[in-house]
């Protein structure tokens, strides 16, 4: 109904003797919104890298539905329905908002099909609907280079939505945003989850509270605590390593 769930079991990643991830296990249900927090170096970004195929785990399994993600490259994982929003927004500056979304639209991805690609009415409607949803309808014809920081983040989320993913990985979406932009982003992510799973990595606890989701706390590459924001905020281990500092 809502696509497959994500399942990490005993995942370890070792870089030159440094354990970036240490026997990490995590389950994200279909349609779930999940926040992942943890101090710097806790392994949040490495976890994202493992799920998207950028980094191969040294040990453990990562499955999405019945697919073993550790055997696939980035492009195949992306086509499987896993979209990732990077910490630093990387939209294509030389292209317009509309063209950025058009590249992200689900369509044949080989050079020949792209050469023969014609923008059908349904595709145009879909792109316009997403520009509406991310609040950039009036900027559709502008090059991405001239968007503000917050607008670039939303455009990137929009690009992920165009791919109609079953799982969305969002890395620090509100870093550097104004309060109003942060609020808008939380509402956007809550709206998106439900029809698809969303995993958000974030530092900003106010934002995590606004998401109203289950929270996973990572520390030194392993799972420290899990539960509602109030549960983890009152967990003594979490207070010691993260919140108390």
């Amino acid at each position: 109904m809502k696509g497959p769930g994500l399942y990490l079991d005993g995942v370890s990643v070792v870089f030159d003797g440094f354990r970036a991830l240490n026997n990490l296990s995590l389950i994200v249900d279909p349609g779930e919104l999940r926040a992942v927090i943890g101090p710097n170096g806790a392994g949040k970004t490495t976890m994202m890298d493992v799920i998207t195929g950028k980094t191969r785990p040294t040990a453990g399994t990562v499955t999405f539905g019945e697919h073993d993600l550790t055997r696939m490259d980035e492009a195949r994982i992306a086509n499987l329905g896993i979209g990732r929003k990077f910490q630093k927004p990387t939209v294509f500056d030389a292209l317009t908002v509309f063209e950025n979304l058009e590249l992200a639209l689900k369509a044949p991805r080989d050079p020949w099909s792209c050469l023969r690609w014609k923008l059908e009415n349904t595709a145009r409607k879909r792109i316009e609907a997403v520009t509406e949803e991310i609040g950039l309808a009036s900027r559709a014809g502008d090059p991405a280079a001239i968007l503000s920081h917050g607008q670039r983040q939303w455009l990137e989320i929009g690009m992920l939505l165009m791919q109609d993913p079953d799982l969305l990985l969002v890395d620090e979406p509100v870093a550097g945003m104004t309060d109003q932009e942060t609020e808008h982003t939380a509402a956007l992510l809550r709206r998106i989850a439900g029809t698809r799973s969303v995993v958000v990595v974030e530092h900003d606890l106010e934002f995590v509270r606004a998401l109203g989701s289950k929270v996973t706390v990572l520390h030194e590459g392993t799972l420290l605590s899990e539960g509602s924001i109030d549960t983890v905020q009152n967990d003594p281990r979490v207070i010691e390593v993260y919140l108390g500092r």
Partner: protein
Amino acid sequence: MSDITAAPAPRGIPARLLIRGAVIAAIALLALLPVLNTLPAGSALRVSDFTVAVTGKWICYGVLALAIDLAWGYAGILSLGHGAFFALGGYAMGMHLMRLIGPRGVYGHPVLPDFMVFLGYKELPWYWLGFDHFPYAILMAMLVPGALAFLLGWLSFRSRITGVYFSIITQAMTYALMLAFFRNDMGFGGNNGFTDFKELLGVPLNTQGARAGLFYAALILLAGSLILCRHITSTKLGRVLVAVRDAESRVRFLGYSVTSFKLSVFTLSAVLAGLAGALYVPLVGIINPGEFAPGNSIEAVIWVAVGGRGTLVGAILGAFSVNALKTWLTSFAPDLWLFVLGSLFVAVTLFLPRGLAGLFRGRTK
């Protein structure tokens, strides 16, 4: 920032139409040259044989520049070895022209070119077979550069060798080919290469008619290549290439196989360079391993930088203007040329990052 976000100034004629008009006018003017060449000597408008031959050469350079711009300006693939694809296309045509000499060579051998008789060949090497047919030679002028680019690109792009590392590999490729073609036992005429061509398609070379024919063939190739590249860059394929240029790994996360896009555009670019080389050789009447010299490829990249990369028309403009400067300067101070070329590149990088084309376009697109 503020000048970009400001409302666009009202414009009379769209810049795109102006550029298109200028390009058509320029091609029409070029097409006039061979006609003016037929005017009687002494006429004020008469264009010399030299001018027609030199302009024809520049047109071939223009196609090479266009090929480089398609790969570099759009997909961000900086090849410092495109001269090799150009030279391979030239050699394919050179082999055809050598076969057409037939028994008219100095040694009068019915089949073997002079250099083979001189080197004691008894029969034609297998890879020379078929080159007596014009369509086969043209096919090879596209196929050999294309296949080499495909192989090199496949090995490099698959391993995610990008940027300066790829540039160095292409530079090494053209240098290696130069050394190989210098060897007599390669069967390509060693350091003398091929020359003394007699005819092409039944027309004796070094006649006014042949020059005009080759000139028009080159002009048609240039116009066709420009239309093709223009079309490609205006489709979604072109936008994916621009995206690859600006943020390669992001494109990969969108689910595009970056390797196949880079491979397609790099191979097509090499094919265009090969065709340009194939028309260049009968125009200048000689091909030798010097065409593989790394400096040639670097010079071609400078044409594109001077003209403005990522603009197509700018690349052609760059090829024409730098070569015009070269022809003029080397007529009285040939030793100065490399210094001028180097300073030109530095000056353009510092003061005109968008090249000559940037002068005509007030705004970025």
